């Protein structure tokens, strides 16, 4: 028993070292390996402990490990980088689901008779684990395009989920006070619905916050399951992940200048609140040749990628254009908004896949000072994160959100399929500025046309 605890502690230390390694580009890969070794230690200790126990149902463990390992490996090795947000969402869901199932087996084993403090953690494991499970798979569906990415308004709006949450709390109290298995099962049912309806009400562009929060939840659920079965490895690992996910959640909310509660409950984008009226102002529609010429005579070019880049799988085309420009002695960098794409760091992963060196990827604080000295900024499939209304128009729904100030560059080229507004239904005054050229095309084919035009110069 002593050795078990010490080896679990070793696993916990390896998790901490691994997470620290994941914080730096040069140490990240080793960090991930360190954490994986920690996991292997924890699993091996657990298995060795069971060897002397009589009547262990080994077949469940072996079959589960083989099936789960095969599915996990297949998903991880086949996924396209553009589909990373939905895969992480799915993995969060499986983790949360597993924690809830552990608590459920304990309820079956004891028929609901727990000490009060343990009963509280059983209820929490069930509630948080199940919400993570159903919520993550709705997020998966939204990101995969299986269900609409728009927020789905519920009858009664945010009150619907508030009522479900109150019912869940009531069932939790009943379960703890009465030791009644039925109360736990009802709790699982209500939280299952709550996970679905809560995430349905949130729009696609708010997914970076949602996935971070579900990530945090999957950790907390694991920690609660650790209390249920009295296992410190789960408590350490779960608490670490709970904290890490919470930090990212807060950072993502700040990047949109909204509170977490606003993201979760406001149903952003369901009400039409566009203050800016384009009126009869016209846009400056440009051809690939026009764009190629302005790029060819630039000294400094900044690329601003957005979700449209991921949808069009245009990361390699962007890189090819940057290479062509660099061969002409033009300096190319990338300005990346914290909530560009559908999960934190989504654009960075895509550009890394296309072999863009990470030193060229600038965050918000480092790109904005450079934009006034930028000759051409190329906005590829981004919209709300470059909308000057967020800075200038106090009536705009996104007012106060930090933006990339691309309107301060000499020329802004916006590569976009149409003038249609972003997810929030907010028109973008940038498109109507004199210094803005609109290139209406799919991100990938548009970039390829520009590269071809550049070759003709």
């Amino acid at each position, binding site marked *: 028993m002593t050795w078990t605890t010490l080896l679990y502690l070793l696993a916990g230390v390896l998790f901490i070292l691994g997470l620290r390694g994941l914080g730096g580009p040069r140490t990240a890969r080793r960090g991930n390996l360190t*954490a994986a070794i920690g996991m292997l230690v924890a699993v091996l200790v*657990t298995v060795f402990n069971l060897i002397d126990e009589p009547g262990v149902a080994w077949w469940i463990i072996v079959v589960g490990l083989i099936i789960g390992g095969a599915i996990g490996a297949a998903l991880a090795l086949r996924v396209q980088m553009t589909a990373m947000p939905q895969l992480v969402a799915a993995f969060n869901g499986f983790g949360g689901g597993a924690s809830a199932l552990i608590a459920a087996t304990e309820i079956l084993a004891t028929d609901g008779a727990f000490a009060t403090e343990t009963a509280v953690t059983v209820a929490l494991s069930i509630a948080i684990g199940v919400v993570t499970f159903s919520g993550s798979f709705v997020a998966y569906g939204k990101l995969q395009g299986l269900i609409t990415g728009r927020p789905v308004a519920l009858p009664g709006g945010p009150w619907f989920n508030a009522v479900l949450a109150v019912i869940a709390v009531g069932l939790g109290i009943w379960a703890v006070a009465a030791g009644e298995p039925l109360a736990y099962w009802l709790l699982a049912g209500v939280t299952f619905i709550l996970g679905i309806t809560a995430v349905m009400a949130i729009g696609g562009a708010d997914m970076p916050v949602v996935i971070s929060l579900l990530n945090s939840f999957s950790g907390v659920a694991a920690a609660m399951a650790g209390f249920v079965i*009295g296992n410190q490895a789960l408590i350490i690992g779960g608490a670490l992940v709970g904290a890490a996910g919470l930090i990212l959640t807060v950072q993502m909310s700040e990047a949109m200048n909204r509170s977490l509660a606003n993201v979760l409950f406001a149903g952003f984008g369901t009400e039409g609140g566009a203050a800016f009226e384009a009126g009869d102002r016209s846009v400056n529609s440009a051809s690939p040749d026009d764009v190629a010429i302005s790029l060819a005579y630039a000294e400094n070019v900044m690329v601003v990628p957005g979700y449209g880049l991921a949808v069009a799988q245009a990361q390699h085309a962007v890189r090819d254009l940057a290479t062509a420009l660099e061969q002409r002695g033009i300096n190319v960098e990338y300005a990346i908004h914290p909530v560009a794409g559908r999960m934190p760091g989504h654009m960075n992963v895509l550009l890394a896949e296309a072999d863009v060196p990470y030193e060229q990827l600038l965050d918000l604080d480092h790109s904005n000072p450079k934009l006034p000295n930028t000759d051409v900024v190329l906005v590829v499939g981004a919209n709300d994160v470059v909308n000057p209304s967020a800075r200038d128009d106090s009536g705009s729904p996104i007012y106060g959100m930090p933006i990339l100030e691309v309107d301060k560059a000499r020329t802004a080229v916006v590569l976009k399929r149409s003038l249609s507004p972003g997810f929030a239904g907010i028109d973008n005054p940038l498109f109507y500025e004199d210094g803005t050229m609109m290139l209406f095309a799919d991100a990938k084919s548009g970039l390829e046309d520009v590269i071809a035009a550049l070759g003709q110069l």
Partner: protein
Amino acid sequence: MSEMFVQGIVVFVLAAFVGFEVISKVPQTLHTPLMSGANAISGITIVGAIIAAASTDGTASVILALLAVIFATINVIGGFLVTDRMLEMFKPKKKQ
């Protein structure tokens, strides 16, 4: 409250603070791998799933435990593998 439970609270609170300290300064470039790596660590629940699977009693409990092991293993194996795949792509500028 049992001694073990109190110890669990101590461990939980300290680990959460360590998590905050270790994570708070991660550059944006690494947010996705950090999240998927952290996600894989939350798969530590695999240990709980194995323990639950070891002492099942009855069909319902077998099904729940088997699902728990499968789910947790997907989370662990998939999470670490996909994180490694992503990080393999992050390269510094080649020296010219």
